[in-house]
């Protein structure tokens, strides 16, 4: 065995894997959308398995309350205020130096997801999209891109003690025709996420990490299940990919596999049947997002069609100048990735975090208008 393969010996022993499967993994490019509870487990296991190229995108930085379940991070990351994607890249460098990681500190939205999945310089079109996301809007975006460009997408979600996962091998041709992808030729295409859940739950209806909490095993089990499906897809074992949706409840001891295969034939899916990519087209979506797990709102201050905005060149915000102005209001810390300031406004404490790509997170409110007001007052919109 050549030396670069030795570390993968135990998985190469598996039937359907072997050196051929391992070489496929090493040639593979995977986009990991979100690097929190699900995403850290996914990135960790894919890197250890030898997936050659990982693109990890996350908009957040690491907090002490993340460490209970987000396995790639440690206390020093919290102290140093390192963004999640960057911290993941550093950890993976020490885990498997054969893996190339692109760390992208950014919000994923309809203006950039297509580029992330198909047009990143030096990467090109990825072979697979992994769901490490904490909201349904971004999931529907990933689903749109997956269907539009024929990229497998593995959904995962978890909250409290429950979780779900499902592998989408998308239909790429109009109904009645067969697309060119290996899974369509093998008659293994599956319904897309919108075939199964036509709509996202409205805000405030479902439990979030805020209201219901979450235990590490719920996310770890879901994420590792996603990784198992990923290994099947990437090694070409399409027959082994599950055609059902996993649902678990670790507290109620329920493990279910729901049959979803008929959803494509029976349904009238806007996305994979009518090929109408409503999320990607920006028909749905918002410029503010209430963040799961925190009393916080993210403001996305990017202009949808303006690549030269603060988002475009990455360093337009002058943290030194902003820090000077904010110091009168409370503690301010900054590094090259972000600026964080404690602000008391109208007697209420907020924590404002600015990122060098133009985003802001206002902690201390769940209301977009309050967050916008804080930003406008102390930074200037």
């Amino acid at each position: 065995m050549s030396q670069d393969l030795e570390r993968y010996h135990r998985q190469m022993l598996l039937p359907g894997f072997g050196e051929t499967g391992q070489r496929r993994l090493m040639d593979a490019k995977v986009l990991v959308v979100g690097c929190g509870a699900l995403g850290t487990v996914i990135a960790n296991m894919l890197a250890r398995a030898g997936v050659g190229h990982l693109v990890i995108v996350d908009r957040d930085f690491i907090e002490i309350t993340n460490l209970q379940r987000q396995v790639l991070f440690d206390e020093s990351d919290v102290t140093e205020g390192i963004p999640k994607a960057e911290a993941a890249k550093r950890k993976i460098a020490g885990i498997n130096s054969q893996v190339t990681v692109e760390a992208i500190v950014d919000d994923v939205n309809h203006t950039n997801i297509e580029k992330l999945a198909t047009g990143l310089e030096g990467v090109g079109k990825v072979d697979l999209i992994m769901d490490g996301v904490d909201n349904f809007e971004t999931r529907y975006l990933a689903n749109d891109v997956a269907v539009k460009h024929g990229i497998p997408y593995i959904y995962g979600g978890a909250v409290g003690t429950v979780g779900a996962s499902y592998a989408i091998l998308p239909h790429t041709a109009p109904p009645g025709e067969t697309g060119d992808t290996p899974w369509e030729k093998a008659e293994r295409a599956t319904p897309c996420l919108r075939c199964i859940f036509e709509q996202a739950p409205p805000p405030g209806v479902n439990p979030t990490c805020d209201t219901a909490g979450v235990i590490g095993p719920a996310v770890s089990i879901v994420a590792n299940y996603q990784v198992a499906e990923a290994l099947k897809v990437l090694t070409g074992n399409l027959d082994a990919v599950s055609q059902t949706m996993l649902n678990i409840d670790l507290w109620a001891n329920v493990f279910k596999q729901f049959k979803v295969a008929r959803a494509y034939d029976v349904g009238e899916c806007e996305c994979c049947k009518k090929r109408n990519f409503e999320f990607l087209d920006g028909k749905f979506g918002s410029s503010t997002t209430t963040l799961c797990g925190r009393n916080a709102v993210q403001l996305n201050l990017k202009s949808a069609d303006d690549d030269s905005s603060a988002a475009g060149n990455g360093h337009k915000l002058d943290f030194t100048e902003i820090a000077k102005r904010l110091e009168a209001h409370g503690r301010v810390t900054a590094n090259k990735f972000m600026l964080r300031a404690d602000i008391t406004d109208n007697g209420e404490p907020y924590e404002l975090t600015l990122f060098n790509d133009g985003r802001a997170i206002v902690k201390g409110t769940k209301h977009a208008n309050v967050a916008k007001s804080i930003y406008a007052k102390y930074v200037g919109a």
Partner: protein
Amino acid sequence: MSDTVTVRIPTALRPQVGDQESLEVAGGTVADVLGSLNSQYPEFGKRLYKAQGELNRFINVYVNDEDIRFMDNLATALKGGDEVSIVPAIAGG
């Protein structure tokens, strides 16, 4: 075999049914069973239904492991011992 079916309640809706994970309910169809729960727990019904006779589109209902949308929807017949799972989209991660 018992005459009732087991209805599995998702975490989000348990407060509306007295914090129960599952309930034993009698009824010949999915509509009967959910209707019976709705009259006993009106708050539960409000979360489940978008309009009269129409479920919210972010909630799926499975009988055993089959989606009712691909059977007879709310008119899907039930027999004693069946398991009805109410499954919302799970968003966290």
